[in-house]
């Protein structure tokens, strides 16, 4: 298969911690230009999968191919070329606490492109911070002076520092208020469309799944049990998937999405026929 179609290919990955098998024979393909949401219960190894793909965790078996390079047998220095083509946002932001936000964004630039002048590097850091939706004042601040949401945005700015093709996001909206989370979803969507990113997104946030994900991969029973759009997943009768999307929270997110689409459609002048959603409530539970 060509690199162009699937920037991330995971084949038969097996991860074992002690006697605890996290993944066994896990396969996953991420298509170019899509936002792939990854869901699964707590402890099913979503973060471990991400760490495996970006080479922080060496699997006990299997193969991971990112942008045409095999991560699983690459040495540290050998795969540096790929490292400059992806950006990673860790759960807590993982900003370097002794550097300002601007300096944080400058780190990857300095590392990979030392020939860039200080002036341009500073300008790049500044507009990346602005693109991430932070005010310009935030560039001179230290991570400890930022709120949780601002840290995530600063982390995103650093992840985008090198104009990556691939973006890994680990629970980007966790811990944000609903307004902040919705704004962050829109930010990711806008950036993804503007910069043609392929996004690997781990989330527990059902609204995020409905709002911005093209496809969703479900991890359960130590492997990816299904990948597809949400309607495709709803058609499956795996108990965990049904419970996840049709539980009370899943319902609420689904309804709000339908309402949201209806409003959007009305605004854009299209008439909607009859079915305004009226499924809210636990009548079927």
């Amino acid at each position: 298969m060509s690199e162009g179609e699937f920037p991330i290919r995971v084949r038969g990955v097996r991860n074992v911690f002690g006697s605890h098998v996290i993944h066994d024979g896990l396969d996953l393909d991420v298509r170019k230009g899509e936002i792939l949401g990854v869901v699964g219960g707590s402890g099913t190894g979503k973060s471990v999968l991400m760490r495996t793909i970006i080479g922080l965790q060496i699997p006990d078996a299997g193969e991971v191919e990112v942008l045409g390079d095999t991560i699983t047998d690459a040495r540290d220095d050998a795969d540096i070329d790929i490292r400059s083509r992806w950006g990673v946002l860790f759960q807590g932001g993982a900003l370097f606490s002794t550097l300002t936000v601007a300096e944080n964004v400058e780190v990857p630039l300095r590392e990979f492109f030392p020939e860039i002048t200080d002036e341009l590097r500073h300008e790049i850091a500044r507009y990346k911070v602005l693109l991430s939706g932070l005010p310009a004042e935030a560039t001179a601040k230290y991570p400890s002076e930022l709120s949780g949401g601002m840290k995530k945005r600063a982390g995103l700015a650093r992840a985008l520092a090198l104009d990556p093709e691939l973006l890994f996001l680990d629970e980007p909206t966790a811990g944000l208020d609903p307004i902040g989370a919705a704004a962050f979803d829109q930010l990711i969507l806008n950036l993804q469309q503007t910069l043609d990113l392929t996004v690997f997104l781990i989330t527990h946030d059902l609204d995020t799944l409905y709002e911005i994900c093209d496809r969703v991969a479900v991890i359960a029973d130590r492997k990816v049990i299904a990948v597809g759009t949400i309607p495709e997943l709803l058609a499956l009768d795996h108990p965990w998937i049904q419970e996840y999307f049709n539980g009370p929270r899943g319902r609420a997110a689904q309804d709000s999405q339908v309402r949201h689409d209806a409003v959007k459609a009305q605004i854009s002048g299209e008439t909607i026929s009859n079915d305004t959603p009226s499924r809210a409530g636990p009548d079927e539970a």
Partner: protein
Amino acid sequence: MRELTDFNLVPADNGGAATLAFSGPMTVASLGAADTRLRNLSDSFNEIDISGVTRIDTVGAWTVWRLSRDHDAKITGCSDEAQKLVDAISKADSNAEDVRAPRLPLLTRVPAHVGEVMIDLGRGMLQVVGFLGQIILSAGTLIRHPGRFRMKALVHQMELVGVNSLAIIGLMSFLVGIVIAQQGAVQLRQFGAEIYIVNLVGRLTLRELGVLMTAIMVAGRSGSAFAAQLGTMKLTEEVDAMRTIGVSPMESLVLPRILATMIMMPLLGFYSAFVGIVGGAFLSSITLGIPFFTFLARIQEVVPLHDVWVGVTKAPVFGLIVALAGCYQGMQVKNNAEEVGARTTAAVVMAIFTVIVLDAFFAVFFTNIGWG
């Protein structure tokens, strides 16, 4: 070799302002050299043509946008993709001021830094005294409410500070004992007074070296650990969590550590002196022909009992200083991980320095009260 961005100025046909035409890729990887030249460009132009650009990313779009903003030029030849990027950048950039971390010139920065250090030093002194006061206050509270005393924490810290350091302190003291005996013997032999090696080793280890070396070792082992532990707990908000639950960090974290060090220091100091004497006896029996047990028996005769008291009296004071420095510095940590390191270093330096200064005062004091 990767492709680089290139540009040239095309003069307009009618003699008007020129056009800046870019070619090649305009990406973060290719722009470095071109950017330097662009910034030195003095010619004027009122049009930027990017139709010759093969690939563009946000860094390229930023460069184009910056040039068009600064030179008031219009951008032509945009592909859809380039247009999208330039639009996104211009939207983000507009009406946002450029804020940089302030940086003073060197001539101002150095005196300012020196001043800051001095002010911090003064404030630090006051804070240490304040911290000691807090400790005494919570010790007072504990005496009134003995039920709240954390026996388990105290015993645990005593194990960490005392029992776990027996091996390293023993080895160190044994070697120091050997060195004193060996070096002393070389000098005393000149007077034929090798037998005084017993006085030298016995009095020196019991009065001074046992306690002093132990204090230095405990500062390095436990004082630093206190600072790092408490500092990390401050960073991860564990200390705040304790407060909200109603557990006083002073009572549960600081006091057990300070008490444990104050209790263990005299024991460790005495142990260190004893092992030092054994080391001296060991060397003397090998090289000077003084039998091992004769050496030990002579110790009882030549070392006055008050030498033991001198060592044992100093030890808890040194323990207090070492633990106080560690706990104080640890509790001062805020903001970031770098500070944990800096505070740990400060704790050890402060502890060792103060211990040595105090030891000099003790030496004069004990001699003057007749325990010479």
